[in-house]
């Protein structure tokens, strides 16, 4: 055991404007050690990873490799000092072939090919275009490229997400073997099964702080979940304690074995009128794509969808809107006309259809926009351009658009992301009220504590499948968190 760790990040802090992403994060990796970095959504994990790999400059704190401060804010420097990352998204250039990509990073070709074979990819041609290769192969090439330069510390960020099980096994075995030879590994993952199989230790982040350092042993999952939850600030209490009973026999929206490969493969649920159905999922479990399929942006690869008992097939969001399915996306910038007024943004759907291309019904428009503005209490002092509004008010505009047209089925994707607490507290009762008036709402949120506040039931999606349906009203956060991590009551995950 050498006394200086391979990597030692301490007291790391980083703010983006007024948002403090990291306040006090630590991570050490000793020679031959595999350390899992864990944290719930928004805990500051990705910011920490970016700082460790040199992509971001910390406001405070330092990152030492073998005791030396080797780099600040430069991924290339980090790479030279021995830290090589492999990210969730392939970082190979699709328009170049394999050997050109290797040349870009000065990767020794022989070692690369050895690792590719070792990792279980047969017959790879160096002249193959990256863009023609399947995603799983690219993940392996990324890893082989990293291993070929003999890194001191390897950072794997959700690298197994797109891999089939047999390749995952290969990857884990290879990484373990390299660690036994002395390489340090930082393993960022949501998957408890892989972590308990592979890792020696886990560092848990919460609200931008390192809150625990645990040795991996049987039963450690419980401790990790507890640490990730911690004490939460109060964001409001549930207004309606009674879950709404489904009022109709026919579901408003019914999906069966819906799949959109490779993001999600088996999602079924019924959404009834008068109900808010929560979606519980960690980042990247297929929920983004699920909402886009339901909203008509993508066609499912298999499975069926029914609206009010009739099968539907959407080729365009206009088809979904025609049967009353409206979508509020997670990224407000996807939904807003930044330079246009509040009125034009809210009234946009009124002009969408061909037979509304003529003169605008000014009175109707004024009334409906005023209704939405009042209902949501949108601050209209800067109504000339929505880009001058606060984040919370911008989000209200995207929701207000569908209030103005009348809500039947509303798909809300993380509507409270990055907005102030006051606006959040306005959004939950609004969602409840819409449901009470007969609307059906599908509600995904990255903040688990919102599920009991707004929802009647919740489906849990893990790894692209619905793994559980839970009663939201009396689900505590522990249950939700365990479910989100794919941990069932009887140990052993999906």
């Amino acid at each position, binding site marked *: 055991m050498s006394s200086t760790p391979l990597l030692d990040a301490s007291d790391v802090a980083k703010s983006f404007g007024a948002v403090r992403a990291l306040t006090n994060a630590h991570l050490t990796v000793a020679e031959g050690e595999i350390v899992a970095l864990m944290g719930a959504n928004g805990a500051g994990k990705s910011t920490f990873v970016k700082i460790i790999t040199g992509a971001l400059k910390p406001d405070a704190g330092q990152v030492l490799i073998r005791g030396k401060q080797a780099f600040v804010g430069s991924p290339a420097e980090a790479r030279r000092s021995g830290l090589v990352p492999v990210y969730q998204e392939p970082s190979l250039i699709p328009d170049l072939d394999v050997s050109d990509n290797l040349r870009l990073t000065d990767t020794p070709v022989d070692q690369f090919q050895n690792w590719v074979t070792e990792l279980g990819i047969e017959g790879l041609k160096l002249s193959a275009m990256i863009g023609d290769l399947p995603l799983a192969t690219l993940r392996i090439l990324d890893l082989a490229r990293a291993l070929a330069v003999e890194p001191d510390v390897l950072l794997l960020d959700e690298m197994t997400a797109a891999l089939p099980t047999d390749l995952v096994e290969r990857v884990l075995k290879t990484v373990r073997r390299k660690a036994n030879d002395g390489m340090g590994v930082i393993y960022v993952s949501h998957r408890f099964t892989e972590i308990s199989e592979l890792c020696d230790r886990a560092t848990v982040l919460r609200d931008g702080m390192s809150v625990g350092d645990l040795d991996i042993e049987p039963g450690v999952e419980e401790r990790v979940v507890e640490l990730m939850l911690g004490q939460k600030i109060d964001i409001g209490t549930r207004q309606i304690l009674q879950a709404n009973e489904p009022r109709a026999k026919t579901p408003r929206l019914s999906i069966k074995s819906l799949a959109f490969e490779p993001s999600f493969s088996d999602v079924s649920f019924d959404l009834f009128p008068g109900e808010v159905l929560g979606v519980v999922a960690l980042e990247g479990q297929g929920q983004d794509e699920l909402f886009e399929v339901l909203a008509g942006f993508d066609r499912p690869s298999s499975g069926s969808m029914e609206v009010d008992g009739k099968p539907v097939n959407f080729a365009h*969001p206009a088809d979904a809107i025609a049967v009353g399915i409206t979508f509020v996306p997670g990224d407000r*910038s996807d939904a807003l006309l930044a330079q246009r007024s509040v009125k034009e943004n809210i009234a946009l759907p009124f*002009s969408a259809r061909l037979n509304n*291309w003529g003169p605008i019904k000014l009175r109707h428009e004024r009334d409906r926009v005023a209704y939405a503005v009042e209902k949501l209490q949108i601050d209209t002092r800067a109504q000339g351009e929505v880009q001058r509004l606060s984040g919370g008010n911008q989000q209200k505009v995207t929701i207000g*658009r569908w209030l103005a047209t009348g809500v039947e089925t509303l798909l809300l994707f993380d509507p409270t992301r990055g907005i102030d607490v006051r606006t959040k507290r306005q959004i939950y009762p609004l969602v409840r009220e819409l449901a009470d008036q007969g609307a059906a709402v599908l509600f995904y949120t990255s903040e688990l504590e919102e599920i009991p506040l707004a929802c009647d039931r919740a489906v849990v999606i893990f790894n692209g499948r619905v793994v559980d349906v839970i009663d939201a009203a009396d689900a505590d956060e522990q249950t939700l968190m365990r479910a989100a991590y794919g941990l069932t009551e009887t140990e052993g995950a999906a």
Partner: protein
Amino acid sequence: MSMDTTDPTMVRFGRYLRDNPIIPLLVFLILMIAVLEVLRPGIVTPFRAGRDGLISTFWVGNLIKFAIPLAMLAACQVLTMLTAGIDLSVGVVATVSAFVCATLSAIWGVTPAVLIALSAGLVVGVVNGIGVGLVRVHPLIMTLGTGLIATGCLQVYQRLVINAGTEIPALLAWLGTGRTAGMPNGLFVFIPFALFILWLMRYTGFGRLLFALGSNEQAAKLSGVRAWQVYLGLYVLSSLIAALAGLLYLGMIRQTSLSLANPLLLPSVAAAVIGGTSIFGGRGSFAGAIVGALILRVLDTMLTLMQMPEGARTALFGLIILAVTALYVRITGTR
């Protein structure tokens, strides 16, 4: 720390100008006319040259007359630029429309000639609209391509009608060269046209969608807008306007050629840009483009008066357009 002016009155003034881009443009236009008057005393104000009248209606009428076709083609650019597009086929479409009208009038009479001339524009517009909206070719490439194809077709067509001779319909000649109370008759077409475009941009669903597509096509899609329909409508409209402008231009010039209105293409883009329309979409004003067209006409007169050689004139023309646009962007903070 920075050199930015943080004076709130300056900021407020800048924002006011940005919301009303027409004001600095009008100031600039008047300034240019003043310079013209200094260069050649009496050209705008006859009394200084010892003649009657405060302002020369002849000069003003002439300025407006030649600005009309330019402003109409600039309308095509404003509308397409709202969606972050451009229509480079308008010059050719105007030429084709004028040529077809003049030749067919001699054979079949005026009414069918005008209708066929407009349908030629329609065909180009449909092709542009399908290319941009459905095949998703970049508008720059698409309209450049259709413009070249239309030029080729026009040359073939010319061979076919080479012996027919040409005739300028009397109505077009009256619109193009006649005057009522000193003002060009072209205004009888242009004023209703301009009002229609201003109304279209501001008070119709179609106009809203143009702004929406240029601001954020994803958001428009999310709201149920089928973008291809809008693009198809837009490029058809643009080509029809260009064909109409070609007819007016024919009446004004009273002769045809295979490149009659082609030189108006780049000035039409310049007029739109000077008038405050963003080539990146989502922001634009037809009123500004009209003033932009007037500015370009005054500039042209000025350079002619200074008796510069052709090359220097063209170069200076380009330079001044760049300077005006840069100045304008600086003043209003738009891009």
